[in-house]
């Protein structure tokens, strides 16, 4: 029963990690921009929902929509006003990294100044576990997280595989010049990637606000998980990021079965190192790093 409990906990956490990582993977896969400030989109989305739902008592669908708009707007802002000007002048990887890192610190401090530096949670009965069998506790939010993750990945897969814009976004990562030859605008496509990639992080942020709580510094942890899941899944692969997030969530929780709790986070990095050493291209990545 304990193993089943840990497995279910891992599935829920894995779903949240997958929802978090897939946006980063989409952005990096399409644009090759190492969007370190992805964790800030998570924080902005989560705090926007928290503020609307708990402070203004806005209905959850409207609060969710507003949070999606806020995160997407942040993604668009990053592309238009941070990454594009840098790339226009220099396009050095390290410059982009530092700029994004700086934005993450600014966002962290802005949130801290505006809403305080303590933990904020969205109180809901959905996060309260009930005993469905002796010793087995499950909260409604577990099923909701897993279902949401499945829906979002299905929608994203359809979008990237079956729509012209989606196919063009995939092509952007392969050959931006060829995209231009076909009369498509790489800048516009990059903006789509940032908007969608930032928006899909919001469900994970809302579930985190309901289960573990938010704090202004949460973006750093989110980024770490996103990066690990992206490497494990295969850089640039949406499917890989989803599987990577799920695997990390499961590994982190299943570790409790035989190991002491202090090993739970180390297991994440053991999985990561194992992939780097034995399968550097991850689950679904190509050896070259391209999709």
């Amino acid at each position, binding site marked *: 029963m*304990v193993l089943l*409990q*840990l497995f279910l*906990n*891992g599935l*829920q*956490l894995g779903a949240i990690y997958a929802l978090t990582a897939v946006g980063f993977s989409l952005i990096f896969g399409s644009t090759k921009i190492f969007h370190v400030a992805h964790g800030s989109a998570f924080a902005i989305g989560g705090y926007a929902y928290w503020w609307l739902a708990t402070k203004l008592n806005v209905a959850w669908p409207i609060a969710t929509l507003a949070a999606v708009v806020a995160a997407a707007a942040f993604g668009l802002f990053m592309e238009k006003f941070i990454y594009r000007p840098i790339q226009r002048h220099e396009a050095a990887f390290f410059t982009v990294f530092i700029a994004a890192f700086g934005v993450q*610190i600014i966002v*962290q*401090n802005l949130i*801290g100044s505006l809403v*305080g*530096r*303590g*933990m*904020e*949670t969205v*109180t809901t009965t959905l*996060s*309260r*576990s009930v*005993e469905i069998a002796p*010793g087995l*506790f499950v*909260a409604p939010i577990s099923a909701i997280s897993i279902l949401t993750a499945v829906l979002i990945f299905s929608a994203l897969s359809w979008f990237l595989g079956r729509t012209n814009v989606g196919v063009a976004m995939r092509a952007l990562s392969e050959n931006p010049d060829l995209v231009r030859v076909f009369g498509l605008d790489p800048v516009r496509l990059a903006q789509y990637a940032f908007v969608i990639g930032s928006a899909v992080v919001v469900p994970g942020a809302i579930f985190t606000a309901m*289960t*573990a*709580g938010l*704090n*202004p*510094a*949460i973006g*750093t*942890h989110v980024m770490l998980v996103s990066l690990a899941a992206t490497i494990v899944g295969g850089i640039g692969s949406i499917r890989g990021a989803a599987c990577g997030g799920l695997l990390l969530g499961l590994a*982190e*929780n299943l570790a*409790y079965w035989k190991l*002491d*709790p*202090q090993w*739970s*986070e*180390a297991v994440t990095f053991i999985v990561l190192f194992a992939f780097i050493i034995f399968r550097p291209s991850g689950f679904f990545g190509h050896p070259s790093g391209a999709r």
Partner: protein
Amino acid sequence: MLSKRLAALCGLLAALFAAAPSSAQDTIKIGANLPMSGPNAELGEIFSRAASIAVNHINADKMLSKKLQLVIEDSQATPQGGVVAMNKLIGVEKVPYVLSAYTAVSKAIAPLGDKAKVVSINGGAVGPDLAELGDYFWNVIPLVNFEAEVLIPYVVKEKGLKNIVLIFVDDPLGEAVQKVLRAEVPKAGGTLAGELQIPRAAQQFASVAANVRQLKPDAIYVASFGTQVNQIVKQLRDNGVTQQIISYSAMSTPSIAQLPEAKGAWYTTQSADFTASALGQRVAKEYKELSGKDANAYVANYYNAVMVFGILAQALEKAGKPITGTNLLEQRRAAGTFELVGGKMIFQPNGTVAMPVQIQEIDGTGAGKRIK
């Protein structure tokens, strides 16, 4: 274009210099090595606000010949961050006195202060070994062994909660609490039924809750700090752990006081009665105006920590002595008693203070309810 940019840059620099604080000759500087960012920034904000109120009082009351200035550096509650901040405060800012917090940070910076003969004073960390960090490390907060000596007999003997599970963070504070509980719980007639060590950066505790349920304790002692305490408490309750939660002074934060899942939890903290004196009332009122929140023991501690400096520095100036760490130490040893928020404070020879400890229950009102 270039000249316009150059002019704009010069203008910006001029504005920055104009806005900069008074020069070193016009001020006496003290440092604060506090967590101002990251998951522990809520406490850093409380500490720094309390310290700034004391600085304002010292300046308003003209206790010193020059204006007192508080230089705050961000330790991020990590030993590495604390050491970088301490080096800057000692080497660049040349301060004789530094406010410290967090056991791991305090232990990391203490040797630097000792070597440079700069006083570090702690008002937030409670690891018992902070009493052994040398002459230049002082504490204005009772350490966790004093807190456990009050809480554990109450929980085990008076409330009959004999089986206790400890969830403790993987750092010097957590390990210190582990050591204290291993001694105190059996002494009170209880059993330490389990010890679950968690990483400092961990945020997910659903599976820790599953472990706790397996151990079937009567009470769970949470030994962590910052946001992590809130996360543990929330996730224990969300994941079917209904037993009594107990902790130490790290639970006296506004965010945990508002956490519905924390209602009913017991924690120890030093007695800090702000109503007992005009000074306490003044500090509590100004803190409320500044933060919108009620003052807690941490506010008293960091206010007192700065006031101790003000009183000692004032005495040194009167005696015509320079304000150095060595002279501050000598003066503290000679001073005896300090009349501060919460009453009389007497330093022990090892730089700690003995203060009465109380047990609070989180009741959803913010300030909480004193139960012992």
